[in-house]
């Protein structure tokens, strides 16, 4: 059965809890469009989100959606993929969820390289808890918890992922949905762990990194850019000045599913029979 899917097929009836103008709307639309264009079915999509304004996205994407605890979307999503490799697995969450409390899992998902997409909705602040600084906030950012200015240097999630062995690194902007849909599609199709960091402004709390600020501070990588050169990618990611958008790095290496020797049958479909002959025979080694 092949039906033509539309973004609406991925919409839920749940009213959004986001503020008007929030960048996260753009992320949601792009995701829906990408899934529709790829012809995915909601029943085959497992969508795992973290906690935060961003994390609420799982309530709005019609799918098997999972809204777990703060910072742990990636371990959940990794296991979902291993348990049923036929599913399209997507994880999403905020900059705090992914780079603060979830930073360790982020590094380890990168090095494991399961086939799934991970969307980081970066608003350079903690939206849901009312505007504290996040790991991507600029040094000096003034908030309730840093009235003298954020003392920490912002983290460059994609550069870190590159150093940790990332195989697909892209960055988009929620105000450019067309570009974003393209990145999302590539990410979902990538045979490995694909990160899409989306600049997704928080209109309520972040008065520095606004839509206008981004428009002035991003640039799009052009055709001349070679996304397979790791050192070049590091340079692009860490250079002072404007923020690159597009696919920044791409590489192919064996996925976690391959290296854990998963069979073609998803684990979830295995027959479970306690009386299997070899199962009983395990005891012989203890006799």
């Amino acid at each position, binding site marked *: 059965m092949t039906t033509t899917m539309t973004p609406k097929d991925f919409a839920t009836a749940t009213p959004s809890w986001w503020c008007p103008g929030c960048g996260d709307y753009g992320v949601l639309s792009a995701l829906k469009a990408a899934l529709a264009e790829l012809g995915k079915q909601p029943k085959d999509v497992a969508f795992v989100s973290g906690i935060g304004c961003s994390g609420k996205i*799982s*309530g709005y994407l019609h799918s098997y*959606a999972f809204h777990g605890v703060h910072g*742990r979307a*990636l371990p959940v999503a990794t*296991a979902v993929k291993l348990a049923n490799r036929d599913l399209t697995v997507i994880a999403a969450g905020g900059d705090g969820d992914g780079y603060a409390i979830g930073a360790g899992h982020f590094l380890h998902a990168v090095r494991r390289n399961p086939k799934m997409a991970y969307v980081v909705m970066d608003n350079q602040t903690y939206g849901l808890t009312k505007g504290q600084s996040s790991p991507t906030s600029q040094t000096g950012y003034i908030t309730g918890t840093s009235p003298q200015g954020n003392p920490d240097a912002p983290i460059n999630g994609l550069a870190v992922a590159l150093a940790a062995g990332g195989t697909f690194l892209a960055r988009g902007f929620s105000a450019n949905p067309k570009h974003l849909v393209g990145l999302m599609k590539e990410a979902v199709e990538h045979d490995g762990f694909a990160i899409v960091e989306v600049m997704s402004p928080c209109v309520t709390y972040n008065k520095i990194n606004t839509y206008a600020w981004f428009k002035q501070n991003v640039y799009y990588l052009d055709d001349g850019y070679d996304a397979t050169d790791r050192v070049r990618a590091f340079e692009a990611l860490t250079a002072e000045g404007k923020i690159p958008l597009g696919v920044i790095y791409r590489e192919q290496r064996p996925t976690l599913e391959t290296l854990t020797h998963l069979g073609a049958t998803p*684990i*979830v479909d295995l027959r479970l029979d306690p009386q299997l002959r070899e*199962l009983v025979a395990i005891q012989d080694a203890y*006799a």
Partner: protein
Amino acid sequence: MSAVESRGAAAAGSDCVIVNDIEIMFGGQAGDGSLTTGDLIAGVFKRMGLEVYTYKDFPSRIRGGHTNYVIRAGEHANYGTADFVDGLIAFDVEAVETHVHELRPGGFVVFDSSSETLPDGVKRDDITWYLVPIGKIAKEEIGLELVRNTVSLGVLARLIGMDPAIVRADVAKVYGRKGERVVDLNLRAIEAGETYVDQHFAEWPSGYGLQGRPDVDRLIMMGNDAIGYGALAAGCRFMAGYPITPATDVLEFMAKFLPRYGGVAIQAEDELAAINMVIGAAFTGVRSMTATSGPGQALMTEAIGLAGVLEIPIVVVECARTGPSTGMPTKTEQSNLNHLIFGGHGEIPKIVLAPGTVEDSFYLSAAAFDLAERYQCPVFVLTEQALCQSKATLPRLDLGRVSVDRGKLVTEPVVFGEYKRFAFTDDGVSPRVTPGLEGGMHLAAGSEHGEAGVITENPKNRARMMEKRMRKLESALAHVPPPLVHGDAKADVAIFGYGANRGPIVEAQRRLAAEGVPTRFLELRTLWPFPEEEVRAFVAGTRAVFVVENNYTGQLDRLVRYVVGPLERMHRVLKYDGRPFRPIEIVEPIRRAAPARGLAEV
């Protein structure tokens, strides 16, 4: 210095031949191969038809550090160590100094006299001292100091009368993997040990004699392996864990076997990842588990609450060790029960099972998966270092007794919009779908939600949803593994305990009964939901009640007392030095507080 410095007075005086009940302690420095030899001794005892239990007392380091491996064998299955050690094989003075007071009068010590000299102070004169230059024999006669453990096995075998054929067969089998040369060296080492005894102590019997019995088809297995095997049999096909003593064995068992059945075991980056992976795989429909110990369990606390509110079936094995914090990682304790039951913010239904034997470790581990899926909640299998890392003999495990009942798992397409993942039901359990099923799409949210999964903060919904979830505990109550009564069901002295303490308690009961103090012992195999009815009934009509457990605060006692109230006749029998109970430590407090009744009282 003569080979035998003193002949135990008591041993000399009596002709005590203890047949078929012996405890051997193998003591030396960690990492010197004593593990293999200890296992070998256990294997020989088993093949001689005896019941065996082993207990490892290892330091939390890799090499060096005093280590001892206790092997107990007898006609009874004794899940625990005896009051006294019968024979100590000591490779250094430290081993003697540390353990000489644990020996039974009339027992014996085999001391490796190659390099160290026994200081005078340590020598008790009520035991027999066999001074054997074990290392020297190994080096000079076999040409390889490494085989000194095997030489000592030869010495021991001869002293207590282990079946020489079995000894040889087992040595050949164990070292078989390493090639013929190694087998040969070790066989010669056995021989050398035996010969030394024949030449020096032929007239100095140890006082111990073992008599073989027919070796029925049995297993010898470690508790952790039984847990892994139970999980495998019950259809667990996903495990994620993070190494931690004494739970790592379970991950290693599963890593070895899961791939053969199409499953996968993942070593996660930490316990937070491990438990969230288990939840992810279980959400997807795979029977999933993790295994950890205290510190890891603490880290899993938040996510366990998530599994509770998402109503996801997971199995979490807790192999308890001595806390708090890092504590004593290789030692036993029962101080995590409170955490399993009462830990976590907010309230969820959970089930806590605790096996008392290796056999029960298998069956309860398997049962955990059915319970998890029937009640869609976390199920803990709680065990302790003293059981989970111990080996014991047991009958073959019956996989026919393992069921795979997946509860209200929906496998046929449902109608989107009608289907409600968290539907209010009488038993609190809602039909469950997994990703990929047509029509079942929904949000599984750790935030409070309505029947269909949509997040809501409505107070009425909240109260109902809370009641629905918690109702599952009541539904489960009649279906969880029931407690077992050991001893004299009509006795007026009652004992409560669980887990690794089953062994020492049952043994204490036998001895107390012989002294005229019959007792009844309720072995709790499900600690939550707590079997209030059974506990209340068990306390009724007693003259004294004892709660035996390995911790400082009396965690089980709290649970019992909550049900029956503070009673003067209730006593705590606690031990919290990291070591399991020896039976006498249970016998004595009971004897003291509930002495045998004179005839007049009966």
